[in-house]
């Protein structure tokens, strides 16, 4: 237990925050391990930013506790917490140069001038902005502003770096580049980061651990692959990527596998990968990613989870071709690595039993 505590940079325990009648954050509990990159993911208005600001100390939780580095910080004002916050709009002080912006937090650390300058230069070099130090914020591009904001948050060496959608103001190409850089930086410096975003792709790329929120509640916590392939609820499955949902009825239930029948009479075998209860005759929802379904003109060797279908439509998406395949009463979305030919007409459809997944409502 003590060892576990020592690995925790931030521990949020059953935190709730209300604004009037609206429950912005409702009983949130999660752990951020030291030197990890945690992403809080959710649609706008789900409470993720409120949760981040509560950790930063701008709101006091109505219930629950927040621990930073093992110490409870509920009543600590923001400037006494060791958090570095990067704002969505960067909030660079327009009347200060880049150097003054980065050095602002050091003013309160009682450092000597030379030490301050060294630290500013060091963090500037780390972020590749050492040649911008004499510029003004208004003279910088969006990507450069973002780096300055990160440098300003890092220079005081906070226990945890908090990032409030810092990539949302960048255009798509820059965003993709910067998120990789951010992840590399976090690894290289060995810092702990909590990153808030509504972009599911960003969350999967950048996070060691993803906390999915909806309507103020945390609905799932896990590594990106779990969030992607094993969504616990229909909301998570739907919010992240494209998914096929199949209504079915359980026909047989064991500890390792389930058998289910869809509306059109299709029999499916599913590896049991969740702790969701599934009794016989129960109506359930199954999810399967488009890339976890295979289609072929030739009959597959196995007969398990195989059905005949007809391609109704195909769209070329670059790296993949997306097929809309009618199987009995189901319409399935299937992604296939794009090659030379685009299939048409009748096909065999095979669903991987290990990728079929039971989701809760």
């Amino acid at each position: 237990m003590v060892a576990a505590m020592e690995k925790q940079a931030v521990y949020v325990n059953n935190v709730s925050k209300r604004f009037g009648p609206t429950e912005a954050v409702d009983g949130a509990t999660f752990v951020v391990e030291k030197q990890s990159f945690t992403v809080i993911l959710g649609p706008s208005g789900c409470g993720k930013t409120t949760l981040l600001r509560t950790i930063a100390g701008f709101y006091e939780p109505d219930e629950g506790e927040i621990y930073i580095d093992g110490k409870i910080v509920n009543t600590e004002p923001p400037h006494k917490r060791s958090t570095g916050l990067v704002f969505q709009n960067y909030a660079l002080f327009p009347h200060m140069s880049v150097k003054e912006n980065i050095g602002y937090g050091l003013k309160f650390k009682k450092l000597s001038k030379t030490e301050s300058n060294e630290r500013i230069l060091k963090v500037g070099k780390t972020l590749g902005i050492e040649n911008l130090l004499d510029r003004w914020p208004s003279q910088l591009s969006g990507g450069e502003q973002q780096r300055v904001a990160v440098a300003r948050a890092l220079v005081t060496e906070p226990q945890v770096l908090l990032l409030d959608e810092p990539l949302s103001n960048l255009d798509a190409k820059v965003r993709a580049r910067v998120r990789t850089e951010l992840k590399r930086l976090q690894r290289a410096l060995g810092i702990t980061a909590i990153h808030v975003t509504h972009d599911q792709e960003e969350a999967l790329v950048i996070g060691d651990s993803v906390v999915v929120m909806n309507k103020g509640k945390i609905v799932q916590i896990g590594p990106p692959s779990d969030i992607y392939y094993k969504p616990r609820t229909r909301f998570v499955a739907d919010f992240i990527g494209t998914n096929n949902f199949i209504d079915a009825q359980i026909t047989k239930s064991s500890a390792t596998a389930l058998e289910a029948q869809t509306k059109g009479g299709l029999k499916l075998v599913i590896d049991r990968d969740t702790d969701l209860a599934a009794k016989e005759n129960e109506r359930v929802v199954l999810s399967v990613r488009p890339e976890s379904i295979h289609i072929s003109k030739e009959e597959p060797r196995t007969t398990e989870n195989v059905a005949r279908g007809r391609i109704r439509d195909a769209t070329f998406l670059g790296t993949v071709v997306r097929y809309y395949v009618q199987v009995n009463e189901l319409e399935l979305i299937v992604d296939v690595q794009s090659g030379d030919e685009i299939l048409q007409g009748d096909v065999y459809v095979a669903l991987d039993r290990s990728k079929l997944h039971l989701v809760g409502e």
Partner: protein
Amino acid sequence: MRVREPAMAAITAAMFLFLTIFLLWPLGEMIAKSLIGKNGLTGALYYEAITQPRFGNAFYNSVCMAVLSTITATLVGYVFAYAITRVNLPGKSVFRAIIILQLITLPFSTGLAFLLLFGRNGLITSTLLRATVDLYGLPGLWFVQTLSFFPVAYLVLAGVLRSIDPTFEYAARNLGAGGRNVFVDIILPLSIPGIANAMLLVALNVLADFGNPILIGGNFSVLATEIYYQVAGIVSNFGMAGVFSIFLLMPVVTIFLIQKYLVSKRLYVTVTGAPTTLRISPSSLYVKWGLFTFCTIISSLVVLTYGSIIVGAFTRTWGYDYSFSLNNMQQIMYQGIPTLINALTYAIEASIVCAFLGVLVAYLVVRRQAIGQGFLDLFSTLPSAIPGVVLGVGYIFAFNTPPLAITGTAAIIVLNHIVRRLPTGFQAGSAGLRQIDVSIEEASMSLGASRMGTIRRIVFPLLKSAFGAGFIYTFIKSMTTVSAAIFLVSADTNLPSVIILGLADNGYPGQAAALSIVVFAAIIVTLVAARLIGGNKLKLFEV
């Protein structure tokens, strides 16, 4: 270059003609009078003025008064603005109401109240303290103008403080700054352009102020009052009034141009992306209650002002007999009511025209439809910088003789109101217009409407509330103005504001107070009526 439509060109030309006749000509005539002697062009009057100690005093006094009052009024305005926009203070709506009150009452109400409380027969100085101190002159004037003009600074500064992105404060706090650091490092530096702007506006108002110096200046004469005495004194010297006007215009127009430049330049570019909604972060209790106390003291002084005017109106003889009486009210009925009807008629006529012209000029300027729109912009905002006294004198010069001999008529008063308040109408119009996306008009025109049809069917209906705002502001100012009107009224076209100033100056403060209340009541009734007609769309005084 884009092809201009003939209709737009015609309207522009008409606007320029109007401004030339009723703004530039009077000013030009004044310059001419000051430069032309019996033997043609001469600087003799200027030489005479500069060598007169009377002139030197007035000039020095004006500058002195302007500097002192500007500093204190801006300071008070900043404290109010900070307290109201950035601190969770109880009784904010009361403080706001106090500011609105100061903006919609007679510009010399505070001076009148000062007379009642601290004057030679003042309640506090003479009756209560039996003191013979003389607070007339600079000390009294400084105090009165601070109280009168801090709301002007407030309006500018509250807007500036509201527009400072709250994430700056949050970022500073996150980096370790406490409340004091946030103010000193972030809020104060970011409000400096706003403070400069507010100071310039207050200085314009103080320099142009005429009523307060007349009432409580005593021997402390300023340029604005000197101009009046040169015209209305025992021996009127129009040429000298012109010279004094020029000397008043020089600092005032300079300030105006600096201020316009500052506003256009927008010193700080805010570096922000998505808007954020953050609430006010709590300030320390010392700060909170310190600000509260300060605002309460200032507000109490304003309340005391209006309290003394109300009491004064119903007192038998102020200074000697404080018993209740309707005497003052009866006294003013005979002279007051007809002039009140004058005032209402002129103010309503002027406000309708002014709001309409304001929207029209705003359209021409904001949508870049006018030829010479830079000049149109400049001339339409210039009247806000010209002291009423100066424009009043200019009107006498220009319109006393043919071809346009209209002095003594109602028309000259209405026209003067229109020209002086055109900047207000223009501002309301352009603020409203900037909120309408150009594509709405383009859609109308692509669907076959002409430019004029689009203005009539799309722009004007959307600008109803801007029109309403322009109307209300013009109306209030026209009802209370005294500085230009005092030169233009005749026996038949007299105005209550002019009468009130005369009564107060000639030792009838009770009657002056009584008539002030009647004027104030008339303004309130009209505002309520406008609200009923205009509905909730009429947003007034977003302070």
